[in-house]
């Protein structure tokens, strides 16, 4: 069943992130995707995450399309102006790519080309609005398109915020919903109690909330993320669990798999698995989660 249909019929969806290579060799990408093919509803293809140069999301999606694998193409405000963004979105529609995820994009200074010129011609909300216009058959100049693209549109939601920032995030969520967004992907979730508190503020009937499950690789990585990455908090018992485990990689896989199980039990609409380079471990996580 296509992702859009599954989301609309409120079925649990499994998404997995597949980062395009820094290079023109797509062999490993396909190898990794094939490992979990059939068990994942769609692969999310990041568009130069963290502003690090990689092959484009459109390119990798087109590649997977040829292989009969469903993808979610990311479109990012950072590197393209409204012409380039619309052109890529139309191309994606023409190629048969059925899902889009709209992101702002991390600042260029975080990446490996800090000398590049940031574009940000459109912001996240405007890009979401642009996609809606294109789906309705017109471009941003109001000119009629020869064939409107159709997508299931998603975007991001920051669940780490509180207070006034949370109010802004929720207001923005309303704007996104009003512009036809059907799902939102959250930042990585480890502390499910905290996540549940956040969910109380969202009307889940209006939009599919898909939490991200990040595969940790070591206790050191977990500690680093907890201390330094804004928006992700990792309970100390998880970090201690990895430290004590005889097989640390297996423990990390177990943590991810068990988190998916609990997310499913919470009645969430799906999950996004992200492995930061360990895409070959996705089937093992799915095994643990009994998916």
């Amino acid at each position, binding site marked *: 069943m296509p992702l859009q249909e599954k989301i609309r019929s409120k079925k649990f969806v499994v998404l997995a992130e597949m980062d395009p290579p820094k290079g023109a060799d797509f062999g490993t990408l396909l190898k990794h995707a094939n490992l979990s093919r059939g068990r994942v509803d769609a692969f999310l293809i990041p568009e130069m995450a963290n502003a690090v140069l990689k092959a484009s999301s459109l390119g990798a999606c087109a590649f997977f399309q040829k292989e009969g694998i469903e993808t979610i193409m990311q479109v990012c405000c950072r590197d393209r102006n409204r012409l380039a963004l619309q052109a890529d979105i139309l191309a994606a529609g023409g190629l048969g790519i059925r899902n889009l995820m709209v992101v702002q994009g991390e600042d260029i200074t975080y990446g490996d080309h800090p*000398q590049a*010129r*940031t574009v940000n011609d459109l912001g996240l909300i405007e890009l979401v609005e642009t996609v809606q216009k294109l789906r309705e058959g017109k471009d941003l100049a109001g000119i009629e398109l020869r064939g409107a693209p159709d997508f299931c549109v998603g975007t991001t939601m920051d669940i780490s915020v509180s207070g006034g920032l949370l109010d802004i995030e929720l207001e923005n969520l309303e704007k996104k919903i009003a512009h036809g967004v059907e799902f939102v992907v959250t930042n990585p979730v480890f502390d499910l109690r905290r996540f549940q508190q956040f969910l109380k503020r969202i009307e889940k009937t209006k939009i599919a909330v898909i939490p991200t499950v990040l595969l940790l690789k070591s206790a050191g990585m977990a500690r680093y993320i907890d201390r330094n990455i804004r928006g992700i908090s990792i309970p100390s018992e998880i970090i201690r669990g990895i430290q004590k485990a005889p097989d640390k990689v297996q423990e990390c896989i177990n943590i991810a798999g068990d988190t998916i199980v609990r997310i499913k039990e919470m009645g969430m609409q799906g999950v996004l698995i992200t492995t930061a380079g360990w895409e070959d471990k996705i089937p093992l996580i799915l095994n643990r989660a009994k998916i």
Partner: protein
Amino acid sequence: MIVAKKKPVEEIIEEVKNYEKILVVGCNECVTVCEAGGKKEVAVLASALRMYFMNQGKDIRLDEVTLERQCDHEYLEEIRNIIDQYDAVISLACGVGVQFMAEKYFSTPILPGVDTCFMGAAEERGVWSERCQGCGHCILARTGGICPVSRCAKRLFNGPCGGSTKGHCEIDKDLVCGWQLIIDRLKELGRLEDYEIIAPIKDWSTERAGGPRKVVREDVRQ
């Protein structure tokens, strides 16, 4: 100088129509030179607004003052004692002045009265044109003193695009091709061989990547 142009008075009216005590603040620096926000323009705008409110049958208070600069604490302080008498201020300074005043007088709405355009020069009375985009790393020494960032429509660094005709830009026949200017000047300076040097790919990190910029001079800091 920073070049600005007057906002249409209708736009300003739209922003201030619900206020009753308004202060119009001019700036004696760049916007005075480019005749957009100096003492004279403050008087013209104030008259237009008074006329508008009179026609609306609304009795309002509208005062005028022009500061030496609005991008400096020292001069902005001059209105501290009177700012509470107004429920809105129209600043005719550039965007810098409007924001700096808003930071200082946090609870008073500070509204812009001009559109800030660019850093430029007065070519002749009534004509100002762009010369600098503040990219943060000046290469004028290599380009005959003419900036390809601000003068070339495509911001090219290695010669003209091929679209210029008789020394004019393809996007506007009245616009001189920036690279024509550069080449003419290099010729004049006897440095045409500089044109042969391939300019490196521009590092834009000094321009805007990384957010709003700041210059800190420890040697002059107090």
